[in-house]
């Protein structure tokens, strides 16, 4: 039987993985919740966010604070890209069959991956941890890297910030109303079209931010877009598509099931996560905190 400090450390490592996933999946979930669009290209926004952060650091250098400007610049650029995509292309597909939206966003995936290959080539890229967060501290008898600690704190902060935005501001009320009844909101004089653009930009921003923030701990490689979208889908399916806290819960469960699943069945690392997803789909097809569509 492993000792308690090891189990705590293992739980913490699962939580770190979970917070990254939450950052990325929250944008996916938000866009689906309001626009009812399953944005397959969300993983591409994540990947482009990572490449852009790399590019900005390359231009700006790795001096103190530079990394954070690069992260912010990358996330904002992705938000603008998302805004353009929604404004110019995606909006023509609202009200059409969902298959069209899925095919369209899948088309974006292919375009983005080819564009990234043209711009940055096929070799893996990497960034160092930002100055100030390069070290580690000993917690529960194991090392906790400071950058992981930062992510562990950032995840809940962003979750709380988003929750406040959605539940405590007028903009949030309108966004939630748009998710429930778009026509009624339009009749009340709200410019729903721009609201959709805004939400899509916010969702894209979160995807780009997630991508930019993983650069110090992950390689930037072609194919990272498709890898992450699968994981993000699992998270939102477990938590409930469109449900904000569901996404958070889904990510935390994903991380913990992965961390402890590999202790129990080391030969099938991903098995436990998929098994959990299957169970959730059978028992609550709309996810743990989601709501059945059409109610």
């Amino acid at each position: 039987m492993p000792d308690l400090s090891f189990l705590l450390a293992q739980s913490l490592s699962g939580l770190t993985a979970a917070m990254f996933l939450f950052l990325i999946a929250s944008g996916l979930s938000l866009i689906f919740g309001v626009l009812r669009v399953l944005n397959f290209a969300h993983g591409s926004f994540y990947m482009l966010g990572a490449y852009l952060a790399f590019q900005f650091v390359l231009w700006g250098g790795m001096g103190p604070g530079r990394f954070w400007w690069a992260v912010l610049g990358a996330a904002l650029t992705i938000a603008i890209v998302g805004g353009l995509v929604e404004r110019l292309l995606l909006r023509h597909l609202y009200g059409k069959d969902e298959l069209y939206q899925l095919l369209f966003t899948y088309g974006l995936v292919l375009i983005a991956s080819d564009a990234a290959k043209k711009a940055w080539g096929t070799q893996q890229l990497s960034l160092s941890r930002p100055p100030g967060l390069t070290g580690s501290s000993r917690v529960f008898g194991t090392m906790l890297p400071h950058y992981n600690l930062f992510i562990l704190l950032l995840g809940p902060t962003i979750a709380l910030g988003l929750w406040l935005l959605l539940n405590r501001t007028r903009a949030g009320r309108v966004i939630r109303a748009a998710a429930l009844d778009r026509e009624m909101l339009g009749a009340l004089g709200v410019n729903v079209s721009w609201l959709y653009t805004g939400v899509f930009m916010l969702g894209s921003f979160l995807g780009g931010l997630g991508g930019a923030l993983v650069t110090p701990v992950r390689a930037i490689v072609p194919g990272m877009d498709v890898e992450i979208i699968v994981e993000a889908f699992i998270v939102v399916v477990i938590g409930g598509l469109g449900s904000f806290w569901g996404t958070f819960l889904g990510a935390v469960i994903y991380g913990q099931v992965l961390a402890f699943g590999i202790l129990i069945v080391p030969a099938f690392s991903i098995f436990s996560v998929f098994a959990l997803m299957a169970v959730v789909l059978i028992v609550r097809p709309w996810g743990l905190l989601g709501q059945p569509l059409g109610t």
Partner: protein
Amino acid sequence: MLRRSLLVTLTAALALLLPSYARGEKIKVGFPIILSGGGALFGEPAMKGAQMYVEEINAAGGVLGRPIELIVRDTKGNADEAVRVARELILKDNVDFLVGTVTSAEGPAVSVVAKENKIVFIAPIPKTDQLTAPEKLHPYVFRVAANTTVEGRSAAEVVAKWNVKQIATIGPDYAYGQDVTRAFVSWIKKLKPGVEIVDQEWPKLGEADYTPFINAMMGKKPDAVFSCLWGGFFVTFAKQAKPLGLFEAVKLNVIAVGEAGSPETAKTMGSDYPFGIWGNSYDAFYWHPSPAHRDYAERLSKYLKDPYPSSWAIQGYTGMQFLVEAIKKAGSTDSEKVAKALLGLTIDTPIGRQTLREKDHQADRGQLYGKMTLDPAIGFAVMKPPTYIDPSRFMD
């Protein structure tokens, strides 16, 4: 009318002016390779190496007086797509030979196509033993890559010299990762019977967060680690493992195969590389075994316009070189004859003498191994020194 004949004359004159440039019907070589997604990291430079070789050969008059045409197709890292493009290359483009594929899924799949169409197929990168296993072997398939048995055993030969007893392994959970880990484990147990495998981690291929795996591994208190995470996966793993203290905990007794010691990976990571561990690579621009290799590295550097040219290009290069030498030996482009000529063929490659063994159509290809040490002059890790492990003495 006059103008047209003038044009013809001019063209003819131009053709004559290109002195040694090969004329005659082209020899077509289909080159199915990954050019998109994660595997493009290997596919692209391998393609460049093949292209450089073809340009050099054509400039020197071609083979049998005929130029070679390389027809490249993207397999997208997918076995079904690889089979589709291989069929298309054979049926539509009428290629005479196939050289290519990257993954251990694509290689065996394209091998079946080569067998059906009786066309020589040389695999420059896939490592799985399955490709040339007795039940899968046929007269037309050959491999110039190291296979998983060679790579696993070479790593075990290195680790056997270390003073370690409890080894943990980590590798991606698919054919390559499993095969090479199994080869390593069985060989190290044979070389050092006292060794114990205390932990085996199997993250999925494409895993982006190794933290839980690293933590679980450290919980088993190994004193050495074997990793076969390749390309960007090793970069991710090492970046996450370093601040967790894994490398210090095992006193840098880590061997990372899957070309984790390649100049590409070292350059990408710069000062984040876990200096002091052991890595392997197919080639290295700073390795100087012979004047021929130095010359090759310089040509490649010029061709790629890169002062630190790729270590993967050599695989496409030697793949094409074997094919061309076999065509010369056979004096024909008939696949039947070329396949026979390839059996037991020994050629001088930039990395030295290589033989395609008659018994299993496998080249006696080893790899470079060395302790990864920071070279301050270039700002990234190099093997100090790079040692080529010749596998012929421990190949089955």
